[in-house]
């Protein structure tokens, strides 16, 4: 809805696992294989995430940003993209990265403080995590703009959080997107908090979606824990962008079950009852499993088989990451410039000799 304040939240699957009316028509149109993909990826992402938190506790990776609770928003949106589409993620989008084709070992390497973990395989248009908040937004707009100018059929997606909507980069990005009508999708996972700061302190508007009224493009608010609704919203936004319809902002309303990072303690700032409600009643995976089981598409046995398979792949990813030969210290001089100049070359030699850089 352009130029209107849209505060309605789209929902296809209720927290209890029932299809809403809108949900039913989407459901009917989907092949079973796609329905199962949602489940498989969400499970993979969740198990990866839990394992990563454990690895951090064991000192095998550094500070890590958990995403449990946001699987539907990430998986549903990423599955609506294709290989030609660009992804500009934040630091919490491991789920998006996996679906896009990032090997698990790379994601682990990144959190082991290894720059090699930033590199996506060839053909995967996934940028490294954007740590400074909202900085990816204008860049995604630019990538989409380039697609438009070059006549390429692709979209660019910026993933960011509710806190990011306070930064100038968000507003400047939105404005460019609106003015130049670029095929960009601004995908905001509104998990209610920017570290400890609740959305009410971030913005005086009730929703993120309504902000696009000021930039004259569509803002959609979906239940971010409803993988089907997220997928469909994203699918529509992509189709619209690819046919010249311009930008869309999708606000996926969700919640991170855990702390901001492994260095944070969410108990300091989130009411227990609120956490309990999201964890016990609104879980994205649980509701979807209920639906699949009710529809006869998933059995307990399928579930444990798939979980075992995920665990194996995760183990393999960890083994690969942990056995990846660490580059020498001089690796920090690689790829700084297209060609190393005399100053970097001299310092590289000093670094190689392990120190003294007099002169």
């Amino acid at each position, binding site marked *: 809805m352009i130029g209107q304040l849209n505060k309605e939240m789209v929902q296809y699957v209720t927290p209890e696992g029932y299809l809403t009316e809108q949900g039913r028509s989407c459901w009917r149109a989907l092949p079973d294989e796609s329905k199962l993909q949602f489940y498989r990826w969400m499970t993979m992402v969740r198990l990866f995430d839990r394992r990563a938190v454990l690895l951090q506790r064991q000192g095998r990776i550094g500070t890590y940003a958990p995403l449990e609770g946001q699987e539907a928003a990430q998986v549903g949106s990423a599955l609506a993209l294709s290989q030609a589409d660009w992804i500009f993620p934040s630091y919490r989008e491991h789920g998006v990265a996996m679906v896009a084709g990032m090997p698990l070992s790379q994601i682990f390497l*990144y959190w082991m*403080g290894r720059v090699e973990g930033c590199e996506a395989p060839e053909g995967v248009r996934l940028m490294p995590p954007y740590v400074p*908040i909202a900085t990816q937004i204008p860049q995604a707009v630019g990538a989409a703009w380039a697609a438009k100018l070059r006549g390429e059929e692709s979209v660019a997606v910026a993933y960011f959080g509710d806190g*990011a909507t306070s930064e*100038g980069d968000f507003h400047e990005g939105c404005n460019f997107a609106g003015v130049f009508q670029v095929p960009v999708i601004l995908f905001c996972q509104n998990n209610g908090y920017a570290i400890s*700061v609740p959305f009410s302190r971030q913005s005086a508007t009730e929703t993120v979606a309504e902000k696009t009224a000021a930039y004259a493009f569509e803002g959609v608010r979906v239940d971010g824990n409803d993988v089907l609704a997220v997928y469909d919203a994203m699918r529509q936004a992509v189709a619209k962008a690819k046919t010249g319809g311009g930008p869309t902002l999708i606000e996926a309303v969700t919640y991170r079950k855990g702390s901001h990072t492994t260095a944070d303690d969410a108990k300091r700032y989130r009411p227990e009852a609120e956490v309990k409600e999201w964890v016990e009643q609104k879980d994205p995976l649980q509701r979807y499993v209920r639906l699949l089981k009710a529809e006869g598409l998933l059995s307990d046995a399928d579930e444990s088989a798939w979980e075992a398979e995920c665990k194996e792949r995760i183990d393999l990813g960890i083994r690969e990451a942990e056995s990846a030969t660490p580059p020498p210290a001089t690796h*920090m001089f690689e790829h700084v410039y297209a060609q190393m100049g005399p100053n970097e070359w001299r310092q590289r030699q000093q670094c190689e000799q392990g120190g*003294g850089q*007099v002169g």
Partner: protein
Amino acid sequence: MKQLTLVQAINDALRVALEHDPRVIVLGEDVGRNGGVFRATEGLWETFGDDRVIDTPLAEAGIVGTSIGMAINGLKPVAEIQFLSFIYPGIEQIITHAARLRTRTQGNHPASLVIRAPYGGGIRAPELHCDSTESLFVHIPGLKVVTPATPRDAKGLLLAAINDPDPVIYLEPMRLYRSVREEVPEGWVEVPLGKARKVREGDELTVIAWGAMVPVASEAALQWERQGVSCDVIDLRSLYPLDEETIIESVKKTGRVVIVHEAPKTAGLGAELTALINEQAFLYLEAPVARVTGYDVPVPMYALEDAFRPDVKRVSQAIEQVLAFE
């Protein structure tokens, strides 16, 4: 006196400032209920309330810009930028305005405020959290820049910064937040801006460092002292204005200088110090001034941060080379 860590000393200074000066406002991301991501503002919101310890939206240009406005209209903001690495959206407000309002209003509306920011590496932080871009600010006329290396200095410098009529960038070495405890005097105590601290006294060589490099420099000097070579170790504390007197006096005594900083070498503060020494003590030098610094590369992710940051071995080698110069 209480035994405090550096971050506790900062907390103590903020508490004292909030108690003593009703104009003082603490604001920033997560500084309120959460007490700051490093707990620097722990307990302040509970004591002083939502109008004096303020969780802001996530926007550095907003934090700095509104702080300047508050300063113009009679408050004394102490803004926290969560990491120095994330200050860049606020840079325009700092460089164009905070630094120049005194000049542009001919002394009528100076931006009298403090901006605190944790900086530097050494704590295995995630990517893009560990910049040491102090020289960006030192380069800007109108700003003062300080960084403590001890809990006592942390408190004294912060209170002096709050009491200072000019905008002060107060940089907090994350590596040292909890590394030592020491006795910190109670109440309002100041360490004057523009005064360096002698960490060790010696005759043969001068080592100049600041922030997280102070213990590194000091340890290297100690190792040389065990071998019979005594060094002056200077903790600058104040990066602008510089304590020229202490620096030059020491250089005139020793004739040999090693400067240590974590920031990359090119156009780092070491270059400015070297020029200062050339201008004021050239004839006393017995060797070229040496610099031990981070390399001229983007700060690497943490797997390589130890190789990037100057360590005792690198400083010690530099001392050796400068001593050997004839």
